[in-house]
């Protein structure tokens, strides 16, 4: 009896959670006549790829996709290195101001991102004067900003993992003649891997799904548009092209889901680092 109830709950939860995803894919596959039909049905008898064709017909859709991928991958890679180094310093070294730094990380996490778009716009514009690659309309600007905003949480999460590696291990490695550098990359880094996975998931999602920064920094260069910006064409004030929006959303969600499924096993143990605080 109890087992039956659990099965039922399982199915119910899955239905509620998965329904919007199902609806998105279904609406993307519906023929034009059914998308705004007065009597919406949760299935379609005439699936078509028309909406996908409309999305892919947008000039440079492939380029936008690639741009998004480049930004997200660069953010993940750089964020992993920077946050790992900082997490090691914050757990393995004793120095004055450590607590201040930890509080600073927490405060940086609380920053209202939406409110900072204007100062960030000016900042990125000035960066562009010095290093053109991270200026306005450049993908580098997105990498830089997402990278910085991903660090506080990533460091916070990795700290728990680095702290869990016993000091004895480091002493043993030192006795065996391993340098601190060698110990860090060959012993510590692999031990912290689940934390790195969880941290990269979080920063990947932020960079991949971002509308706000892309809209703020990429104001004229169409070549450097990211995927979300490319999809904005289908949002029209009065008559939205729901079929294309859903097809675009589907294409945008699939890579993240693939990434998630690939690393899902490590995610729970990865978040454990943050939990142990």
């Amino acid at each position, binding site marked *: 009896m109890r087992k039956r109830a659990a099965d039922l709950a399982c199915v119910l939860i*899955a239905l509620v*959670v998965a329904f919007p995803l199902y*609806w998105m894919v279904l609406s993307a596959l519906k023929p034009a006549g059914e998308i705004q039909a007065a009597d919406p049905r949760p299935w379609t008898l005439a699936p078509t790829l028309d909406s996908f064709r409309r999305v892919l017909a947008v000039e440079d859709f492939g380029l936008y996709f690639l741009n998004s991928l480049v930004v997200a991958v660069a953010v993940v890679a750089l964020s992993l290195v920077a946050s790992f180094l900082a997490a090691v310093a914050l757990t393995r070294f004793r120095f004055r101001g450590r607590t201040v730094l930890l509080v600073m*990380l927490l405060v940086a996490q609380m920053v209202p991102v939406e409110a900072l778009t204007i100062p960030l716009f000016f900042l990125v514009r000035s960066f562009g004067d010095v290093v053109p690659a991270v200026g306005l309309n450049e993908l580098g600007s997105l990498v830089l900003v997402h990278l910085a905003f991903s660090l506080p949480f990533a460091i916070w999460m990795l700290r728990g993992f680095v702290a869990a590696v016993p000091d004895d291990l480091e002493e043993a490695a030192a006795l065996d003649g391993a340098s601190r550098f060698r110990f860090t990359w060959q012993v510590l880094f692999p031990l912290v891997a689940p934390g790195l996975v969880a941290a990269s998931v979080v920063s990947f999602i932020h960079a991949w799904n971002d509308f706000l920064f892309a809209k703020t920094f990429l104001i004229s260069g169409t070549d450097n548009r990211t995927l979300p910006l490319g999809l904005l064409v289908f949002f029209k004030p009065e008559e939205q092209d729901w079929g294309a929006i859903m097809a675009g959303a589907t294409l945008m969600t699939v890579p993240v889901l693939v990434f998630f499924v690939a690393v899902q096993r490590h995610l729970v143990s990865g978040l454990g680092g943050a939990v142990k*605080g």
Partner: protein
Amino acid sequence: MTAPTTARRSRNQALRRRARRQTTLHALPWLAPALILIGGVVLFPVGYMIYTSFRDLTRFGTDRGWAGWENYERVLDLGHLPRVLVNTGVWVVGVVALSIGFGLVLAQFLNKRFPGRKILRMVVIVPWAASVVMTSTIFVYGLDPFYGIINKFLVDVGILDAPFGFLKSPLPGFLSAMAVAVFVSVPFTTFVLLAGLQTVPHDVLEAAQIDGANRTQTYWRVVFPMLRGALAVATIINVINVFNNLPILKTMTGAIPGYDADTTTSLMFKIIQSDRQIDTASALSVLNFVVVVVVIGIYLRVVRPMRQED
């Protein structure tokens, strides 16, 4: 007898101080990339925002000099501020409490072994992986009174007599947005709490069972207290994200005229977007930021979720 000891102690202290200074120097290269990035790209703009909140800016961004507390006074004089503040309180407390509640139940469930657990875990992740803007858009489409599937479902089941324009008026619009906010917050919350549940050792649960504790007692007396760290992380991150969330309200209730469905964050956005008052918006953002910092500071002080490590 005391004199040499004192001398030795002070010399020890000096040595220790020197050692510590050395490790500070050693730690610096490790910290530098993160510090420069966070300092330059996150905290510096915050400083700029605070600076702007004390300046008098025109609609076109020309700086007309020092404004004192004028921008703050203008924020506090806004006629719709009380309503927006109440909304913000309901928004943050409601969404975070519901997300944690659902998250606790779901995490407990996903921590058990049952067929299909793997698949369910993957499904639960979906709203976290999808873009919040896209998820909100899907709900806008689903709630449409003419062709929305959610409306049709509610009518078919008999909850509604006729399709209802959820996003046409402030209160239902705001509550729908809250529901979506819970929907997108639950996955992260669940996974953090699941991570917490997995730190509870098996022998502790067995010991509780041997001592004759029933399921409810075991959960509230043994498991729940051990979730303190996970609950703290889930609460803090959710409070920050929910407080600062703009996309959901912008997508779902942004078209409703007036300010009855706004939180301080969406109000800030409207002040920039439609009134172009960057200085006033900055003052509001600073107030927002201070509120978040104070709320979380109080939480950390009162609940003391982080065990002292040193």
